[in-house]
């Protein structure tokens, strides 16, 4: 695989190009390839793609896209050009499994199969801000979920009573984040559980300053080094990738495409959605990616569902699972906040999609998360229950489509619900939802069973 040093050199020597020119070229190229490869939604509405030929064309389009565009280095405003051979070699040589954690908490995080029958890997939480006073308790709650394979950090605005501003305070806060994570997993009786650093900023010193086998990030832990939308990378992230490649920590990336950005509509997002995790693997050695397609209106909490987004997401993940070694995760991002039935229904929908399209499960949290208002452990436990039932019941793509259609009907004429802070709907001391949320959960579960997910244990 092309070395990170080679990538670093190309960020210094590649063709100089201004951001706006890149963005325009990005859109023009993707539009041309959508037409060339005939990427189009079928006339019949689907949540999960059943057309394997379309998946093949989408993959070919993504490879041609990456070969044409390369990756844009935001720091130096240069293009990191890639040959087709370099791209295909990287895809071929990437691993399909990642080892993480130590001792009895060691786990293997795997690439999944489309309509696979193995239980999914799970990261139950975080990637959402919590206040300093709740930090340790929140982590130990998420670590107590038995199926947890790794747990990700979170951002916060204050440390030791001071607002975090500037690189030195960020470095300090980054180290505290990992301290809390390590303490939280220890308190939960799982000291070897892998933790993943969530960058509170993307400066190299923040990313590298946490490396510390005794109190910080261990070799068996991981770090989130995400490629930016529109195939953009940064030198600070690349610096961290080089360091962690030698240190041994695994790396992951947020690699979904955003409909509404420069990729255009769902069809363009499919191409970017397939190309981006491949680019993240090449640029930063991210082998685990949360993948797919999201819509800017969903990320902003304007609409619960936007037509064809689920379909586009399924094509991306089916292509990555069929043609590459990318280890995909579904980042469950409800538009409704915790403590509401809509949040659970949205989580259910995405947890049904995940095993059918071959995705592991990652950190469910409200799309417009604010401090202590992003998630509770219940949503994570719920997504595990739902995906397990889907697998046990042996859902294929067609059956998934039918069930998803029934759930989607519930969202008609509904607006996302704001939800509650974690302390209002979840008892962190006793690791259980508060009564009202528990009742909502039981009701939603019973209704989903009635709808056809009969293996869901009530």
């Amino acid at each position, binding site marked *: 695989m092309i070395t990170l040093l080679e990538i670093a050199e190309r960020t210094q020597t590649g063709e100089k190009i201004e951001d706006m020119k890149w963005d325009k070229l990005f859109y023009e190229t993707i539009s041309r390839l959508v037409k060339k490869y005939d990427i189009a939604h079928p006339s019949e509405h689907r949540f999960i793609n059943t057309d394997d030929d379309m998946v093949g064309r989408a993959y070919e389009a993504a490879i041609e896209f990456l070969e044409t565009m390369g990756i844009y280095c935001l720091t130096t405003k240069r293009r990191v050009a890639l040959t087709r051979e370099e791209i295909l070699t990287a895809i071929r040589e990437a691993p399909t499994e990642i080892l993480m954690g130590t001792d009895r908490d060691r786990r293997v995080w795997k690439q999944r199969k489309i309509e696979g029958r193995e239980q999914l890997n799970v990261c139950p939480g975080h990637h959402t801000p919590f206040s300093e006073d709740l930090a340790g308790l929140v982590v130990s709650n998420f670590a107590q979920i038995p199926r947890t394979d790794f747990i990700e950090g979170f951002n916060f605005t204050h440390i030791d009573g001071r607002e975090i501003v500037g690189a030195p305070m960020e470095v300090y806060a980054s180290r505290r984040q990992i301290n809390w994570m390590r303490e939280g997993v220890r308190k939960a009786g799982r000291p070897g559980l892998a933790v993943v650093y969530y960058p*509170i900023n993307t400066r190299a010193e923040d990313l590298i300053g946490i490396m510390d086998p005794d109190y910080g990030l261990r070799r068996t832990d991981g770090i989130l080094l995400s490629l930016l*939308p529109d195939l953009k990378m940064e030198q600070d992230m690349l610096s961290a990738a080089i360091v962690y490649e030698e240190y041994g920590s695994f790396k992951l990336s947020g690699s979904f495409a955003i409909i509404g950005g420069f990729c255009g509509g769902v069809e363009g997002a499919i191409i970017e959605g397939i190309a981006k995790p491949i680019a993240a693997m090449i640029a930063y050695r991210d082998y685990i990616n949360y993948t797919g397609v999201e819509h800017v209106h969903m990320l902003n909490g304007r609409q619960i569902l936007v037509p064809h987004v689920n379909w586009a997401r399924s094509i991306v993940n089916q292509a990555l699972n069929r043609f590459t070694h990318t280890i995909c995760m579904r980042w469950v991002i409800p538009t409704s906040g915790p403590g509401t039935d809509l949040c659970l229904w949205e989580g259910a929908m995405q947890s049904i999609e995940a095993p059918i399209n071959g995705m592991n499960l990652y950190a469910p949290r409200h799309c417009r998360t604010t401090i202590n208002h992003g998630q509770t452990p219940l949503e994570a436990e719920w997504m595990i229950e739902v995906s397990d039932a889907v697998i046990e019941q042996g859902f294929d793509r067609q059956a998934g489509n039918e069930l998803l259609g029934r759930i989607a009907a519930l969202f008609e004429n509904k607006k996302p619900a704001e939800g509650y802070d974690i302390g209002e709907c979840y008892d962190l001391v006793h690791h259980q939802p508060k009564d009202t949320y528990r009742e909502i959960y039981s009701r939603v579960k019973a209704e989903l069973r009635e709808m056809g997910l009969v293996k869901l244990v009530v």
Partner: protein
Amino acid sequence: MEIEQMTKEERSLLDSLKEAIVALDEELATAVAEKVVTTGIDPKLAIRYAVANAAIVVGERFDEGEYYLPQLVISGDVMDVVTKILEKNIPKTEMETKKIIVIGTVQADVHSIGKNLVATMLKSVGFNVVDLGVDVPSATFIDKAKDLNADMIALSSLLTTTMPYQREVIDDLVSMGLRDRFKVMIGGGPVTKAYADKIGADGFGRDAIEGVEVAKRLLMVQ
């Protein structure tokens, strides 16, 4: 002259101009704009009716998920071309000056998609938008706003650790005695109305669509 006083043909021509812009057809929009000029239609009225209404339709299409960022960018370019053709025929003394908004993602933050959407939508509704990019220090925002005699500074942040840099711009404006000279609007993933109030921003946009409404309200633009 007002739109109601126009002939059916004149009105139809302006409708064609609007439709060409909405269809993102620069060639057709250029031809129709030139015809508008030769026909003798008041160019100010053409801008107010055809270009402004096209911007509304483009915004609606974005809202409905039919148009995306590239379409917003292209429509902005088409509107620029059309407006230049029409403005050539407006006496300088009668030219309406566009409100100027300086926008960027604050220092230490390289996220751009939200900022790009807001910038493009602001441009499409007729603001003169100067996009400073990402990782922009406070001094750059203020210097540029001063240089251009801007009306507003719009600050984006996606990280909790870069939100303080939104406040820094406001604090710097206060300490330089410039706070009253520019409206300040903030936005971004973790940013809330409460935070905007706390740091003394004039406005907060939850997303690009709301950001445009807030900017129009703050700058008293129809």
